[in-house]
């Protein structure tokens, strides 16, 4: 972990462009050192100054839901960054870990949508509006949504409609409706298309009965129909709408209704195995206590920057890890426990633990233009410590990733590791092996696992839990630790 070097001014020669920030011609994000900067065109700068003069800028920055931003005097941006030239440079607060809507559980997407609408409604009161409605413009500081795209604010032009309405439907409303109305996770759709779900696609996903649900007929069925009817008439329709006297009050009315609609959407995870797993898995009280202690000892043995908790479930160990880490990423393949953990953390006002839905056997890839617009998981920041507790049997047996492959992947993160190995006698392992043919997964044995682990890491600690079916290890990257001899039985 390195102490963050706060740069007050960017060094254009050492700047790195944010590959996902090219769509808006008036603004572009770049990095220099540990600083996040934004170059603005002449128009972009004018819009920012207008935003700076609003009450909402102060109010939302103060409560942390608008990214902290300063206008730098006399700072330079790399040449050629914006087609129109750079007129000003902003410095932004750095968000600890970037995440994407296809990784958020339902309530995170809903909170991002509500923030987007609240900012819009506040902006409209002061003659401004957000020119787009992308959830990629919202990030999370722990369980707190933060709007990061300052370049989205612009002064409202008389007679113009809400330009971001369609995008709001495609990337917020439809995904939320799918989960709330159909119980269908929108993650595959959002990951499958960077622009979201089109009105026509959404109509195809709705049944006849669904059209009677609140908001569905208007925003889905009618929207799809009108879109088909008026395709290629954009300019004419815009002029017609303006001529008919489209005004701000209409946008306000639409946004208020949309806010009500979104606020009313609910989804709760089914009470399945995973959701209650943390409470009723196979641990005895002594085992659970010992495991807590083990994780706490490692977590607080030094200050860790970023900790990844893989298979975080109800977040018990993410919380322990947070005692000694600046930030924790709590990831689980199942949306249910992630949703519940997020709700609890939100209630507590947590700013340290970021909850994400992530299937390690199929993690978020690079997406968008050149595969760089949205980054793959490891590209977004390497962890300093990784927790892989009660996980390896799911990866190796359920997802069929060979134990060796999994250990090599963990080692590729170049971070310290706390890993738990449940033996073949463990009830959970038996349950996973049960339906499979006998003799499968011969590599799922403690001895061979320890061999692989010792080959990729310096194993510093090993502890067998009381019940004898689970073993905990603390390991550091090769060359960084003081390895113990694993052939000697543990005390």
């Amino acid at each position, binding site marked *: 972990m390195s102490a963050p070097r706060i740069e007050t001014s960017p060094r254009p020669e050492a700047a790195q462009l944010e590959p996902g920030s090219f*769509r*808006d*011609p*008036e603004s572009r994000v770049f990095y220099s050192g540990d600083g996040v900067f934004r170059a603005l065109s002449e*128009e972009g700068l004018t819009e920012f100054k207008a935003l700076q003069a609003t009450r909402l800028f102060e109010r939302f920055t103060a409560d942390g839901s608008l990214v902290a931003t300063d206008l730098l005097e006399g700072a330079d941006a790399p040449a050629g960054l914006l087609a129109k030239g750079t007129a000003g440079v902003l410095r932004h607060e750095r968000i600890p870990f970037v995440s994407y809507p296809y990784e958020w559980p339902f309530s995170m997407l809903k909170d991002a949508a509500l923030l987007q609408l609240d900012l819009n409604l506040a902006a409209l009161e002061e003659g401004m509006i957000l*020119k*787009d409605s992308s959830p990629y413009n919202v990030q999370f500081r722990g369980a707190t949504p933060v709007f990061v795209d300052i370049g989205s604010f612009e*002064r409202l*032009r008389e007679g*113009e*409609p*809400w*330009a*971001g*309405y*369609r*995008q709001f*439907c495609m990337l917020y409303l439809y995904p939320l409706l799918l989960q709330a109305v159909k119980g269908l996770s929108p993650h595959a759709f959002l990951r499958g298309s960077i622009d979201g779900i089109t*009105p026509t696609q959404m109509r195809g996903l709705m049944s006849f009965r669904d059209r009677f649900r609140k908001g569905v007929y*208007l*925003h889905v069925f*009618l*929207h*799809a*129909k*009108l*879109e*088909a*009817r*008026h*395709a*290629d*008439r*954009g*300019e*004419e*329709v*815009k*002029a*017609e*709408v*303006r*001529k*008919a*006297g*489209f*005004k701000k*009050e*209409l*946008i*306000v*009315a*639409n946004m208020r*209704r949309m806010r009500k609609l979104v606020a009313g959407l609910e989804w709760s995870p089914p009470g399945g195995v995973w959701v209650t797993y943390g409470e009723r898995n196979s641990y005895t009280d002594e085992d659970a206590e010992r495991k807590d202690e083990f994780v706490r000892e490692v977590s607080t043995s030094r200050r860790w920057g970023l900790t990844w908790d893989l298979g975080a479930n109800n977040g018990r160990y993410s919380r322990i890890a947070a005692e000694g880490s600046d930030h924790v990423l709590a990831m689980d393949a199942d949306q249910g426990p992630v949703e519940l953990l997020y709700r609890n953390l939100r209630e507590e006002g947590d700013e340290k633990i970021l909850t994400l839905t992530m299937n390690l056997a199929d993690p978020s890839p690079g997406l968008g233009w050149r595969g760089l617009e949205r980054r793959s998981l490891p590209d977004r920041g390497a962890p300093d410590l990784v927790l892989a507790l009660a996980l390896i049997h799911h990866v190796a047996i359920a997802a069929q990733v060979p134990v060796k492959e999994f250990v090599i992947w963990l080692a590729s993160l170049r971070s310290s590791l706390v890993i738990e190995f449940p033996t073949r006698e463990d009830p959970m392992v038996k349950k996973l092996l049960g339906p499979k043919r006998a003799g499968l997964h011969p590599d799922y044995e403690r001895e061979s696992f320890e061999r692989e682990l010792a080959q990729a890491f310096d194993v510093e600690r090993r502890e067998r839990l009381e019940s004898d079916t689970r073993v905990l290890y603390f390991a550091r990257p090769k060359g960084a630790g003081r390895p113990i001899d694993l052939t000697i039985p543990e005390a």
Partner: protein
Amino acid sequence: MPDILAYLDPGSGSMIVQVIAGGAAALAVMARLYWNRILRFLRIKKDDEVVDQKRVDPK
């Protein structure tokens, strides 16, 4: 203020949905929108007037 086009295409169908969805605030706008269409259909107003409007949206 320069009247530039939003970088995002608002979508023609989506603009009309907004007029319909605006509730009471939208009634007058919707009435005018469709009244203008009827006038154009009856050739009482010329299409040119719509074309004129395009000049405020230079590409």
